């Protein structure tokens, strides 16, 4: 393989570039990124950066003086992928990049509710975070739509800034998709204890206001006043540019356990990719930092070996979230019906370790302010039943 193009210049793309070089790839490396920035870290955007405790410089993902000997094409999006004698990536400025291998690392984009009222935000980029912070500084009431991790973290920061905060969630409990309803409910108390109003099982009908948002109207007729609204209803994979390329797309780019896509010479990593997870028996799009940082090493092997390398065993998905100084950590994947038990600490103190089991097997672990035992329990996720 003489040349590789990486599309997407964020965590997964940078990690792929590092892995390719570390694995001895000496050919031409091109990195295409729609954002004009060098790769930067997103988790602080809803935490330290939003709170003003970190600056743009702190967000840099590259090390000082790090040189991957790559050609960076930043500020220009890829618009298509064509298969011919080589792979050809068309760019928005009319130019193209040809390569023998392609890494798709285009991540995800925040889902929106539509409309164009000012004061309504999503949070995915540095610009989003700066705009949200500016609006929070001038506001009294924040409504967060969607009780996921990003929304909850923004709620935390807004509370420390002294805002009145309400979170509205359509599901019966917060974080239910990631943590299941029981543990989601356990974490709800954490927010209520910090003065956040949490309204679950309530769907949003519309946002109100003229020019600028002034409230959120719920399906049950309730109306919440708001100066700022954060829409935190998840993200969709940024894969539209692959239309017509032959790369199979479902909820994200469909990949095997090594990151290979349906097109030879093309792998996909990070938030845009749904790798086959043998422990689950299904494809799963994982939208967390650690997967986007670590899986590219496997994908690079797949690419450089032409698919011959046997992929490393897939580490279970891992995520963390910081809320009111509490460290929330979760590894694995939970499905409705899993049994959950608290193994250490207790729910009332909100310092606990909970284990999720399916047919006797540990499938996930949740730690709230238990980094030490979490680190130990995490290693047991997906071990065969009865291994310990």
């Amino acid at each position, binding site marked *: 393989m003489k040349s590789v193009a990486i599309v997407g210049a964020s965590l997964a793309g940078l*990690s792929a570039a590092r892995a390719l070089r570390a694995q001895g790839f000496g050919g031409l490396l091109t990195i295409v990124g729609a954002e004009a920035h060098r790769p930067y*870290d997103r988790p602080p955007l809803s935490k*330290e950066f939003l709170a003003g*405790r*970190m600056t743009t410089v*702190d967000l840099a*993902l590259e*090390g*000082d003086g790090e040189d991957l000997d790559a050609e960076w094409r930043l500020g220009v999006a890829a618009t298509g992928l064509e298969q011919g004698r080589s792979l050809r990536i068309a760019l928005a400025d009319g130019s193209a990049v040809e390569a023998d291998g392609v890494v798709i690392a285009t991540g995800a984009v925040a889902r929106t509710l539509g409309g164009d009222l000012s004061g309504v935000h999503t949070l995915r980029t540095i610009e989003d975070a700066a705009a949200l912070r500016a609006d929070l500084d001038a506001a009294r009431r924040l409504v967060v739509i969607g009780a996921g991790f990003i929304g909850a973290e923004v709620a935390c920061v807004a509370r420390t800034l002294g805002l009145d905060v309400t979170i509205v969630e359509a599901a019966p409990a917060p974080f239910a998709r990631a943590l299941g309803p029981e543990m989601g409910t356990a974490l709800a108390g954490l927010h209520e204890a910090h003065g956040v109003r949490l309204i679950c099982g309530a769907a949003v009908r519309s946002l109100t206001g003229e020019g600028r948002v002034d409230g959120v109207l719920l399906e049950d007729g309730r109306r919440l006043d708001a100066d700022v609204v954060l829409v935190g209803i998840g993200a969709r994979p940024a894969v539209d540019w692959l239309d017509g390329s032959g790369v199979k797309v479902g909820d994200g780019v469909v990949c095997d356990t090594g990151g290979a896509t349906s097109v030879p010479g093309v792998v996909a990593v990070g938030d845009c990719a749904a790798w086959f997870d043998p422990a689950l028996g299904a494809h799963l799009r994982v939208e967390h*930092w*650690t997967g986007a*940082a*670590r899986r590219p090493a496997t994908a690079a092997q797949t690419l450089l070996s032409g698919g011959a390398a046997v992929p490393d065993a897939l580490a279970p998905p*891992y995520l*963390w979230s910081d809320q009111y100084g509490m*460290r929330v*950590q979760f590894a694995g994947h939970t499905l409705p019906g899993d049994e959950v038990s608290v193994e250490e600490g207790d729910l009332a103190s909100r310092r606990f370790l909970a284990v999720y089991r399916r047919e006797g097997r540990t499938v996930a672990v949740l730690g709230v302010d238990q*980094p*030490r035992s*979490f*680190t*130990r329990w995490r*290693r047991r996720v997906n071990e065969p039943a009865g291994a310990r």
Partner: protein
Amino acid sequence: MIPACPLAALPRGEALRIETDPPIAVFHTEDGELYAVDDTCTHQDASLADGWLEGCEVECPLHASRFDLRTGRVDAPPAKLPVRTHQVVVRDETVYVVPSDLPPNLPPGVRTGSA
């Protein structure tokens, strides 16, 4: 030289945090070696003594960067800077730490009491 603990109080495979400023973590590896590094991860405010000790490396409990206890070197992001190492001395069955006079690599937002 700072006394850390009696040697018998730190079994192999275990770690101890001493409340110096900044705190220091002392590790006793499965192979019987003793190492000391700054307890605070260079990425964010996590205690490396809470991490996972494997061979001469400790994995940060929060985001899994691994530090080589002999050199302080970090293997992979998110941490980018090495962790400062300190010398360990065992005298009369007691573990002592000789703190380094190099500056620490503390994460953004974490400061020493004196600074």
